């Protein structure tokens, strides 16, 4: 197991991968199909995505396990296969990454709101432990708890991952700009509240993902940096806010535009940069060229 924290020493900026979900749909995943089941049924497609980001020059790739918590898999009746599907996700990404690239085990939200009492903390915690353990068994170096909006759920996932695997944990939240210009998650959490809570829970790398494009990510990173000058920050940015055009969903930010903005993002304090929805290997290649050439 390699330390991502150690690799970030000496002000190294590392490059992460791009989209998985929108990429899977491009390769034929149908709306309503379980993306994580593809780790078994369409292994070569999942591997091709993982490999395409390594070939583009990424230092690390995620795993196809965003919706791999038992609570989320229950929608498809696949909760009993959670361990198998998560492990397979990790094995595929590890195979694509080889030994000299990092693999980040993706854990997304369960879609359950704890404060509504739909499910107990223990059930969610146990589910996150199971998912993190399976990802570790499949060979991930780090756990990445991502796209979070509620503090209670995010902290449960971080604690579960830390306690059950001992691996380094990254945690990213998704913020939107309110009409008065502040950043908040849909549950009302500000970047400042996020930073303190997720560090207390055991995350050693923090950050933000998804969102509405690079410009807003720069503002969010600045806000995090104004509170916390030290903790490494990871950003996985969408290729802008999607627009619906001629019966298709189009993401407006091109690889060129992202590449042109990446130095500003790094200046604002980001240490790991990659993409989220709508980004492709071309976007990642653009980031690699912009960062490595300079």
């Amino acid at each position: 197991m390699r330390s991502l924290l150690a690799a970030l020493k000496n002000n190294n900026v590392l490059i992460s991968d791009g989209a998985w979900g929108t990429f899977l749909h491009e390769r034929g995943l149908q709306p309503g199909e379980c993306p994580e089941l593809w780790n078994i049924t369409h292994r070569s497609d999942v591997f091709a995505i993982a490999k395409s980001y390594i070939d583009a020059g990424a230092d690390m790739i995620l795993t196809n396990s965003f919706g791999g918590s038992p609570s989320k898999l229950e929608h498809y009746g696949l909760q009993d296969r959670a361990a198998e599907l998560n492990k397979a996700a990790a094995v595929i990404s590890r195979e694509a990454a080889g030994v000299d690239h990092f693999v980040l085990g993706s854990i997304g939200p369960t879609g359950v709101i704890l404060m509504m009492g739909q499910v107990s903390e223990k059930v969610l915690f146990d589910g996150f432990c199971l998912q993190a353990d399976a990802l570790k068994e499949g060979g991930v170096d780090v756990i990445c708890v991502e796209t979070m909006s509620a503090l209670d759920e995010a902290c449960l996932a971080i604690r579960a991952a830390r306690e059950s695997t001992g691996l380094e944990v990254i945690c990213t939240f998704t913020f939107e700009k309110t009409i008065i210009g502040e950043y908040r998650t849909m549950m009302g959490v500000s970047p400042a509240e996020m930073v303190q809570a997720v560090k207390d829970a055991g995350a050693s790398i923090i950050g933000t993902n998804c969102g509405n494009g690079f410009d807003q990510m720069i503002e969010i990173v600045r806000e995090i940096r104004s509170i916390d000058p030290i903790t490494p920050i990871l950003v996985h940015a969408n290729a802008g806010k999607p627009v619906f055009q001629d019966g298709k969903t189009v993401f407006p930010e091109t690889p060129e535009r992202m590449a042109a903005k990446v130095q500003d993002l790094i200046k604002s304090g980001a240490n790991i940069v990659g993409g989220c929805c709508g980004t492709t290997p071309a976007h990642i290649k653009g980031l690699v060229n912009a960062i490595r050439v300079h």
Partner: protein
Amino acid sequence: MNELVEKIGQCVERGKVNKSSPYPNDMKGMDGADEFTRQALEAAVGPDAILQVCNEGMQRIGARFSRNEVFVPELLMAAKAMHAVMVHLEPFFKTGSIRAKGKFVLGTVAGDLHDIGKNLVRMVIEGNGWEVIDLGVDVKPAKFLEAIKNTPGCVVGLSALLTTTMVGMSKTVQEIKAQFPATNVIVGGAPLTMEAALKMGADGYSPDPQGAVAFLDKVSVANITQ
């Protein structure tokens, strides 16, 4: 009596469900929507007056949500307090002494399993006096069509979170409009804009639940005056 009724409205807006509820912090140990509603009914307050203040309370919290002054948790708690009132009012709905403003058929479109946004819309619309027929998530067009057939005069709401399901949403709107051209359809969800909504043939779009209430009020007035 007015004081009791007003307190019910405040409890709904603040999300104070009942005496034992720890939320919100500054109302700990105080009576909530549950207790005040019981007291009001015992004091012979009309159920329609209670419903009216609840609708107003939900409208206030919905408007604050639209202005980003409060977020999902506050809205959820308000809906929970509203539900505590509705338990007491249920018998009056059954006997017909109070009636819903209309019927709203709601669901997350085929291929999309996200229900948080849809549930928020349901709660706020119910809280504003409408009967909601919730078809759940991953709802195929045929299921919408059947529900519309069985619910004459209803308004329809479609929700989607995933960018990948917007194409399916568009198809659902078109199928509904082909069979029931007079039925009003409103769409909502993170990837949408008014422009996209109108392009796919919907009658309305709202970025938040309160906008859906405004749409419903508008079309129901239009229906009455027709």
